[in-house]
């Protein structure tokens, strides 16, 4: 099962870890926001594409923006969403 980790500030300290399904990174995120629509505006733009400014890590690897569409999230991977301004 894929783990998806969000900033604690997005949830006011409630749950920050969610589960998702494996697949291409954009599809993993789209499926996640379908299941959790309260986060859609933080992750997906009006054109249904991943927002440019967020950063996404698969396990320990920060995925360059130009490689997002081709990056595969395997089962047991962790996707961490990092806002352009983290913490605080």
């Amino acid at each position, binding site marked *: 099962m894929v783990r998806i980790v969000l900033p604690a500030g997005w949830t*006011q300290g409630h749950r*920050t870890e969610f589960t998702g399904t494996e697949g291409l990174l954009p599809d993993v995120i789209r499926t996640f926001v379908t299941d959790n629509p309260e986060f859609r505006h933080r992750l997906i733009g009006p054109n249904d594409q991943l927002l440019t400014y967020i950063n996404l890590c698969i396990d320990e690897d920060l995925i360059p923006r130009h490689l997002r569409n081709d990056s595969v999230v395997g089962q047991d991977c962790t996707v961490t969403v990092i806002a*352009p301004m983290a913490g605080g």
Partner: protein
Amino acid sequence: MGDMQWIPGGTFLQGSPSWVLDWLDGEEHQTLPRVWFGDETPTVRRTVEPFWLDRHLVTRADFAAFVAATGHRTDAEQIGFGMVYGEGGWEEIPGACWHAPGGAGTSIDGSADHPVVHVSYQDATAYAAWAGKRLPTESEWEFAASGPRFRIWPWGDDWQQALANTAEFHAGPLASLQAWKQWWSAACRQDGPMPRTTPVGQFSPEGDSGYGCADLAGNVYEWTASLSELYDDSAAVDPTVRTAVGRYRVIRGGSWMNFRYQVRCSERMHGDPSGWSSFAHGFRCAKDS
């Protein structure tokens, strides 16, 4: 390019003692979780050498002089958009940049003495080099804000709404995130999503730090030179902050968007240095003694 203040240097405990997190936890109107502030702890002993720090944030006039002299094009100008917080949250607004802070069609007319915004880490670094200066380190910034002994805000430990450009300065005391959203929605309907910056030094001298630096609390977020790190790997911190460690640069001071709790001297944020900027981000410069 304005005055610089002499900061004598010294050894101090950087960060927040644990009672600060207890206090934040107990504040009725503080909406963020304890783990959000965990990167401020534990305190760590740091020594800073004497240095100079800009008394004021870099202004739009300062930045215009830099652009005129060098032809510099900011990252926001090159990628074609800047980050603006609209009624629904952060948006990538076409044309938003340092001279059009609310997006295409907006301007900075009449606000030359406000801090420049929409500057990325690279933009700030380029300006500093041109000015014969550099960005302050995180330790230098905090020492300049708090002095050798811990204090919550640059002027002391008692919150003074009239001494810093925060959301509370504009809206009055805010009791919840919802109240913040209502204020911001009303502001957007009135003037559009324009940054609510104020002229640098507007809150001087009462709002200055003990070393005479203005706007260290609020107005705009400030880039520092420091790569993000944890004070202690065992600290309980937001998991995404832990992932940003070693990748992001430390941002200090909070901004006009924030509540009082985010403009404290020991408050830390971490910014993506790969070209990102927003309508609430600026900087000031430092110089070796």
